[in-house]
């Protein structure tokens, strides 16, 4: 088995897979190393599938807008596989005056950044989504937002990259990155040594431990988020949903099932036994949240719940960056739960960075050394 490549990517999630695909398209040889037995076993397969621009930090927004305009609409065609992308808009719902204030603030921010988001009242929201409860007072509406199927999108990138000759190795845990002649080059796993002209760390929270072996630290923490899915329902609506109170978020999938994510308020103190297990309180809590906005779903049966870790950066914006002290190393981590929607854009950018081309968008806001102490 070949252990040398132009680029070695650590992490077989959607960031690693999309980067591998765009690099392979450029003709680079790529090896992707994945710790888990399964491709895309972290946040990539466990998220709510949002492809949102609204609600993004202004630094992240250009990445989301580029993806929604240039990459997502043609992604199924490009990857020869339906990733179930719907660009049917995002409704962020409010039930109280306080919620409406929050939504107005978010709308003002988004509009000033050039995104088409408007405030709409109950009747206008009902016209878009007739299933809303009488409690919903209003919403913010971004017509160009959408959602996709995270399981399929992650595996579609993997499948296509593999077809182009990218070598994926699973159950291959990276323990160290070593410099050769002052440049990151060797990637040591529990069993093997790989070498790449460029090494990209895209391993979610695990990136922190790996980056530490070469003297780099990113201030981030893991947080457990939970998602549930219903049995298939008749086709109802395809907008992405969210709420001002962050009770839940989600959408109806091609399959007919509804996928909803949410929180219980115990995320900070969830027991961590090393596997992402669901908390017994959360699914019930999410259900109560959903039924206030969509009473018609009260008889929909929940068939599965699951949880996944996100890598939350101290400023909630990812790190997508070369490392000056370590030539040859690129970091792509700390996506803070916003990684899925921007993954096609990030993969494109990382591919540019890895081959030394000018990136299509400015990535200087995502530098690894932007973190400063408060005084």
């Amino acid at each position, binding site marked *: 088995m070949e252990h040398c490549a132009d680029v070695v990517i650590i992490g077989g999630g959607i960031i690693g897979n999309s980067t591998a695909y765009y690099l392979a398209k450029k003709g680079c040889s790529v090896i992707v190393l994945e710790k888990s037995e399964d491709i895309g076993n972290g946040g990539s397969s466990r998220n709510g599938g949002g492809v949102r621009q609204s609600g993004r930090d202004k630094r992240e927004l250009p990445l989301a807008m580029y993806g929604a305009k240039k990459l997502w609409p043609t992604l199924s065609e490009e990857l020869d596989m339906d990733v179930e992308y719907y660009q049917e808009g995002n409704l962020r719902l409010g039930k109280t005056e306080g919620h409406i204030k929050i939504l107005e603030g978010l709308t003002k921010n988004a509009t000033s950044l050039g995104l088409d988001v408007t405030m709409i009242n109950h009747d206008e929201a009902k016209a878009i989504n007739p299933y809303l409860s009488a409690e919903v007072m209003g919403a913010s509406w971004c017509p160009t937002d959408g959602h996709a199927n995270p*399981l399929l999108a992650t595996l579609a990138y993997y499948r296509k990259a*593999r077809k182009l000759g990218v070598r*994926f190795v699973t159950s291959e845990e990276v323990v160290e990155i070593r410099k050769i002649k002052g440049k990151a080059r060797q990637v040591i796993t529990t069993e093997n040594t790989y070498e790449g002209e460029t090494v990209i760390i895209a391993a979610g929270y695990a990136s922190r431990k790996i980056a530490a072996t070469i003297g780099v630290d990113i201030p981030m923490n893991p947080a457990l988020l939970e998602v549930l899915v219903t049995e298939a329902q008749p086709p109802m609506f395809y907008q992405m949903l969210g709420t001002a109170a962050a009770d839940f978020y989600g959408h109806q999938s091609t399959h007919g099932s509804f996928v909803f994510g949410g929180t219980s308020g115990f995320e900070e103190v969830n027991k961590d036994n090393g596997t992402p297990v669901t908390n017994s309180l959360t699914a*019930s809590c999410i259900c109560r949240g959903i*039924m206030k906005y969509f009473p018609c779903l009260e008889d929909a049966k929940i068939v599965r719940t*699951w949880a996944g870790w996100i890598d939350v950066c101290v400023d909630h914006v990812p790190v997508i960056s070369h490392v000056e002290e370590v030539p040859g190393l690129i970091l792509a981590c700390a996506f803070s739960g916003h990684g899925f929607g921007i993954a096609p854009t990030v993969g494109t950018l990382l591919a540019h960075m890895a081959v030394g081309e000018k990136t299509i968008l400015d990535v200087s806001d995502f530098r690894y050394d932007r973190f400063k102490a408060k005084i």
Partner: protein
Amino acid sequence: MSKIKDRLINLGEFVLQPDDDMIICRCEEVTKGEVRKAVHDGMFTLTEIRRYTRTGMGLCQGQTCGRLIKGIVARELGVAPIELEAAVVRSPMRPIEMKVLGNEGKEAR
């Protein structure tokens, strides 16, 4: 034979079999051929097969087809079924209405 880690190993040509249209996952109506094809598309674990084809994601949660799929995937990969980790079982064990699941607090009080 030990676990397959390298996803570029050669599985040979995908050849149609006479019983490929047999439904294996009844809840999601996935056929044997679709499962076999998924393996050739690079889905080497039962978890990946599930995410790719929806086997075991329906109302019975794989209780009916889990063992059959394990056998099909193992044969396709040329490994012993015992080498394949079963896909994770998820709560709740039986489908349960939102209004019931969301009512757990009241019952406790």
